[in-house]
């Protein structure tokens, strides 16, 4: 390359970076894979109304979103779990003040292959299965065969939520862990695909990912309770035992475009999108 070409390249680089710095009409939303579809639907609807501004939504996992917020590379973090104390401390160190906004609810579906005769489990049975105490489908009313555990990676809010609320039954002193033999898949879609083709598999993910290729189990809190299906009504009225809030985190009280976007997600239109993407509105 000639020297002139190099010079032009350098000038171009300087020009684009200056341009990017001036362009304040865009925000970055990042985090929970569970919420990516929801976030994108929000962003599309929002940009229809307010075409001057740009909202970019990317996934990666709740932890990824929160650490981006802390390091200042995104404006809003989507999270399917509460921020950890360690993360708050670290954020404070970096001058970031995480502000939590609850925007929706989500039921966690436990899914198996449609050919699996098992159609209901108690939370205790789930805990026994995912910690590796129960390893054969025979022990929970299915055919004789090894259970293949599917879990999300540790950067997933869904992983953390499932561990704390199902495996550990909300007990902070509990030391239960996912069985080491559990397969760690990189996305909810990967779990959906594996369950669809594998009669021995069991996995979990947000209700939004349920399709005809998987069978969502009915879950009961304990042996005496009724088995409930993961439906929107059952999450709203609290009958379905594994549901969780979904959050947006911002740095301090939102202002400007961030505030406009957050307000939109909480508005009637925003909450309608929540319902359309198979999550549960908070105001319902």
């Amino acid at each position: 390359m000639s020297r002139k070409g190099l010079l032009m390249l350098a000038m171009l680089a300087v020009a684009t970076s200056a341009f990017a710095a001036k362009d304040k009409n865009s925000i970055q939303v990042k985090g929970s894979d569970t919420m990516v579809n929801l976030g994108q639907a929000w962003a599309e609807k929002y940009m229809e109304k307010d075409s001057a501004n740009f909202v970019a939504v990317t996934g990666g996992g709740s932890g990824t979103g929160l650490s981006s917020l802390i390091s200042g590379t995104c404006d809003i973090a989507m999270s399917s779990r509460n921020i950890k104390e360690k993360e708050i401390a670290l954020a404070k160190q970096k001058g970031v003040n995480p502000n939590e906004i609850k925007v929706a609810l989500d039921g966690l579906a436990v899914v198996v292959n449609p050919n699996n005769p098992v159609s209901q489990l108690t939370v205790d049975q789930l805990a026994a299965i995912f910690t590796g105490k129960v390893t054969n489908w025979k022990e929970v009313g299915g055919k004789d065969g090894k259970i293949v555990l599917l879990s999300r990676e540790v950067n997933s809010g869904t992983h953390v939520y499932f561990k704390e609320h199902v495996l550990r039954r909300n007990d902070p002193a509990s030391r239960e862990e996912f069985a080491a033999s559990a397969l760690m898949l990189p996305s909810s879609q990967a779990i959906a695909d594996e369950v669809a083709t594998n009669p021995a598999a069991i996995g979990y993910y947000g209700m939004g990912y349920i399709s005809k290729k998987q069978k969502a189990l009915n879950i009961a809190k304990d042996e005496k309770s009724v088995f409930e299906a993961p439906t929107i009504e059952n999450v709203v009225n609290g009958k379905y035992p594994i549901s969780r809030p979904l959050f947006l985190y911002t740095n301090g009280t939102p202002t400007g475009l961030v505030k406009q976007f957050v307000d939109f997600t909480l508005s009637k239109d925003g909450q309608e999108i929540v319902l359309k993407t198979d999550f549960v509105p908070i105001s319902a």
Partner: protein
Amino acid sequence: MLVRKFKEFVIEKLILICGLASIFFVVLIFLFLLKEGLAVFKTVGPFKFLFGKSWYPISEPAQLGILPLILGSLLVTLGAAVISIPIGVGCAIYIAEIAPAKTKDILKAGIELLAAIPSVVLGFVGMITLVPLVKNIFHLPTGLTALSGSIMLAFMAMPTIVSIAEDALYSVPKNYKEGALALGATHWQTIWRVMLPASSSGILAAVMLGIGRVIGETMAVMMITGNAAVIPHSILVSVRTLTATIAAEMGEAVVGSEHYFALFAIGIVLFIISFAINVTADLFLHRRQQ
């Protein structure tokens, strides 16, 4: 004249800087890895880190034992080596010694094409085609196993092995071959008794570089080995490799936490393994030249 000399001088120095830059960056990267990675030993001893049997990095307290990850990486690599070495070396012999000129060109182009497939595409194809196949053939509960990873990685190691091994075969002096044939040896006897021994160090280097490629591969293994952090007892179970662990967890790890440091320490382990492999390959190549 003076201008010309000056020009030469400037260009020489520029090239020198380019040459030194690569070393400079390697040293910087290694120092950074050391600085971030060694911090993990404040919370967990080196022995417990390398030989600990459970990897639960985000629990309280975290369990940071990477033995299952090391064994996972080694198992997948070993499997890939067993598959790719005979095929790769065989392919190199065919191209260098047997194939007619036209076939040779087609084969070489094909192998270059194989090298050009991005690993994420290979992983994706493997996930859709190979994983169900492995599951059905061996009647396994799941096809996301070390074997699936090994087969896929064998494809990635093959181009490296073939092209370097073929090179080594080419550089055997012609009179070796002519001498063998003149003494009445058959074509195969010549290849087996003369050509292969004469190029053995180059072929070993090819194998080492192929293995180096496999052990550092991330995306394809993350997609098809299942990533379960257990100590593998057979090649038909899921494994979690060192590379996949770093890739999957780096996004989550809170900067400055023990998990973060542990991932960097895994990076050091990987660096040392690849470095050892490359040095071995280099030694073989060097021996050939002498």
